[in-house]
C-alpha cells in the first residue's frame, strides 16, 4: 500500500500501511455484514431476525443454517424432539453463546456486535430457572432489575407488577431455596419479565408445574403477548395450539416445518377420512357404504368403528348417515378425522428421519 507521504525507504511506510489498511477493512466489513447477510431493511424492522445460524460443538452440529424472522406480537412455538437444538438456538438468540456462523438481530441490533444494547430488551427464562437459593424472592428480583438496568424510578413498581402477574406476591419474603418447584418456575418467569422485555424467550416455561399452574402460566403468557414478541419452546403440543401464532418444528438442528398456526389448523381440519361408529357390527356394512359411490375405501376399526375414506372432494357424510338410519345400524358417531398437532409433529419428524 502506497501512501502519499511515503518516502520510498520502505519500513515506516510499510508499517503504517499495515496498521491503517488492516484496521480500516475490519471496521468496514463489520458494518456491512448485516446488510449483506439479509434482505435489506428486514433486519431493522423485524423484532427478531435470525439468519443462517449454525452452531457446532466439535464434530457435532447442533444447529444448521437456521433462519427465521418474527414481527412484533408474534408468539412462536418452537418445537422439536429432545436434542434437536432448541435450547442451543435460544441460547444463541439471547447472546449467551455465540454461533459458529450466522447472525441474530434483536430490534435491528446485532446481539454480538452490540450485546449490551440488544440484551436490554430481552427477557429470558432458561431451561433451568437461574435462581440464587440464598436470596428472598424480593431481593432476587431487585438484583435482576439492577443488572438488567431497569430505571430506578420504575424498579419498585415493576417488581411489584411482575410478582402480582406471576402469583408470587405471597412468597416475596421467602428464601428461594425453600420454595416448591412450581413457585421456583414462576420466580424464573417473573425474572424474565422484570425489565419489561419486548422479546421474551421462554425455554419450557410450564415444565414441572401442576395442571392448574400450567393453565395459569399459559394464560399469563397469552396476556403478555400482544406488544411483545414471544419465543416459546415446549414439549406440550396442545400448549402451542392454545398460545402460539406461529410454529417452527426443528429436527437435527434444521427447520422441518415453519407455518402460521392459522394455516396449520386449516390444513389439519382438511380431513381426508371419516370415522363412523355404530352399535351393531351389522352384516354387509362395508359393502353397503362402498355401494354409495364417491368412496374409495372402508376399513373396519375397533368396537364398531369404520374408517371411511371418500374420494377427493366428495361429500358423503349425509349419504352415510341416511343409510345408517335406514338400515338401523345404531349410528353413534360420525366425525371427520382431524389431525392433531401431535400427528403433524410426528409425521414431519418421521418423514425427516426416513
Amino acid at each position: 500500500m502506497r501512501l502519499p507521504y511515503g518516502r520510498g525507504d520502505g519500513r515506516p511506510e510499510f508499517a503504517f500501511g499495515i496498521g491503517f489498511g488492516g484496521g480500516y477493512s475490519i471496521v468496514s466489513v463489520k458494518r456491512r455484514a448485516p446488510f449483506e447477510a439479509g434482505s435489506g431493511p428486514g433486519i431493522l424492522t423485524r423484532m427478531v431476525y435470525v439468519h443462517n445460524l449454525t452452531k457446532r460443538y466439535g464434530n457435532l452440529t447442533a444447529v444448521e443454517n437456521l433462519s427465521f424472522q418474527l414481527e412484533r406480537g408474534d408468539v412462536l412455538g418452537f418445537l422439536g424432539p429432545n436434542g434437536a437444538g432448541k435450547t442451543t438456538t435460544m441460547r444463541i438468540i439471547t447472546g449467551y453463546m455465540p454461533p459458529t456462523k450466522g447472525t441474530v438481530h434483536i430490534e435491528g441490533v446485532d446481539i454480538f456486535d452490540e450485546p449490551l444494547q440488544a440484551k436490554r430488551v430481552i427477557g429470558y427464562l432458561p431451561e433451568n430457572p437461574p435462581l440464587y437459593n440464598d436470596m428472598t424472592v424480593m431481593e432476587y428480583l431487585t438484583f435482576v432489575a439492577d443488572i438488567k438496568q431497569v430505571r430506578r424510578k420504575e424498579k419498585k413498581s415493576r417488581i411489584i407488577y411482575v410478582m402480582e402477574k406471576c402469583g408470587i406476591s405471597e412468597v416475596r419474603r421467602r428464601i428461594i431455596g425453600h420454595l416448591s418447584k412450581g413457585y421456583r418456575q414462576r420466580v424464573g418467569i417473573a425474572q424474565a419479565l422484570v425489565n419489561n422485555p419486548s422479546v421474551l424467550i421462554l425455554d419450557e416455561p410450564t415444565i414441572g408445574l401442576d395442571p392448574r399452574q400450567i393453565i395459569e402460566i399459559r394464560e399469563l403468557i397469552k396476556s403478555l403477548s400482544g406488544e411483545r414478541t414471544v419465543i416459546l419452546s415446549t414439549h406440550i403440543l396442545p400448549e402451542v395450539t392454545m398460545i402460539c401464532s406461529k410454529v417452527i418444528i426443528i429436527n437435527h438442528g434444521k427447520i422441518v416445518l415453519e407455518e402460521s398456526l392459522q394455516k396449520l389448523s386449516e390444513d389439519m381440519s382438511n380431513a381426508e377420512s371419516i370415522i363412523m361408529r355404530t352399535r351393531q357390527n351389522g352384516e354387509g356394512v362395508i359393502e353397503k357404504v362402498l355401494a354409495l359411490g364417491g368412496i374409495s375405501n372402508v376399513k373396519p376399526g375397533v368396537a364398531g368403528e369404520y374408517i371411511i375414506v371418500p374420494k377427493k372432494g366428495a361429500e358423503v357424510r349425509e349419504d352415510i348417515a341416511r343409510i345408517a338410519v335406514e338400515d338401523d345400524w345404531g349410528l353413534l358417531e360420525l366425525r371427520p378425522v382431524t389431525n392433531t398437532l401431535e400427528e403433524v409433529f410426528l409425521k414431519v419428524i418421521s418423514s425427516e428421519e426416513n
Partner: protein
Amino acid sequence: MGAFYPVLKRELRSYFASPLAYIILVVFQIISARFFFLYLQGFLQFQLDPSYQLQTGDLNLNNLVILPYFGTISIVLLLIVPLITMRLVADEKKNYTAELLFTSPIRIRTIVFGKFIAALILLIMMLLLSSVNVFVLIVHGNPDFGAVFAGYVGLFLLGASFLSIGIFASSLTDNQLIAAVISFGILLLLWLVGALSDAESTILGYLSVINHYEDFGKGIIDLKDVVYYISLIFLGLFLTYSALESERWR
C-alpha cells in the same frame, strides 16, 4: 460499570447470609490470636533470660512478635482464601445463574471485578480483625509503626493475589470443592516454587509469591514487589475473564 454495585452487593450479601463469612472470620481470628499470644509469650520470657542482655540489635518487638505473627497470617491466608473464593464463579454455573448474568446487559469483566472486590472486602475485614492484636502492642509497647504498616500493605497485596488466583480456580469448574483444591494447589505451588532461592537470583525465586513478601515485613515497600503482586492480581482476574469468555465459545 452500572452493574458493578449490584454484583458486589449480592456477593457480600451471599457471604454474610450464610454462616461462611462469620466462620471464616472467627476461625481466622482464633488461629492468628493464638499464635500472636505464643509469640508474645516467647518474647516476654526471652526478655527475662539473662542472655538477652548480652544480645544486641535485632531482638525487638518487631522481629520477635510482629514479623512471625505476619508470617503466620500469610500461611493462614493460604489455607483460608480457597474457601473464600471457591463458590464465587463455580456456584453461578451450578445454579445456572451464569445464564442470567451472561444474557443480561452487563460485561463479563464487571461481573469478575464485582466478585473480586466482594472477596477483597472480606479479606480487609480479616486483616482489620487481626490488627486488634497489633494494636495492643502499639498501646502497651513501642513497635516500629512503619514496619507494621508496611507489613499490612504486604499482607493485603498477598491476600489479594491469592483471591484473584482463587477466583480463577473457581471459574474452571462448577464444583466448589474442586475449585478449592485447584486454588490451594496453585497457591501452594507458587509459595513453594521459590523455597530454595530468593527473589533476585532465579526465575523460580522471582515467581514465588512469598519471596516478595519478605521486604514488607522488614518495613520496606519496594516498588518491584508491589508491581509483582499487582501483576499477579491482574493475571488472575484476566484468566478468570478468559475462562468465562472461552466457555461460551465451546
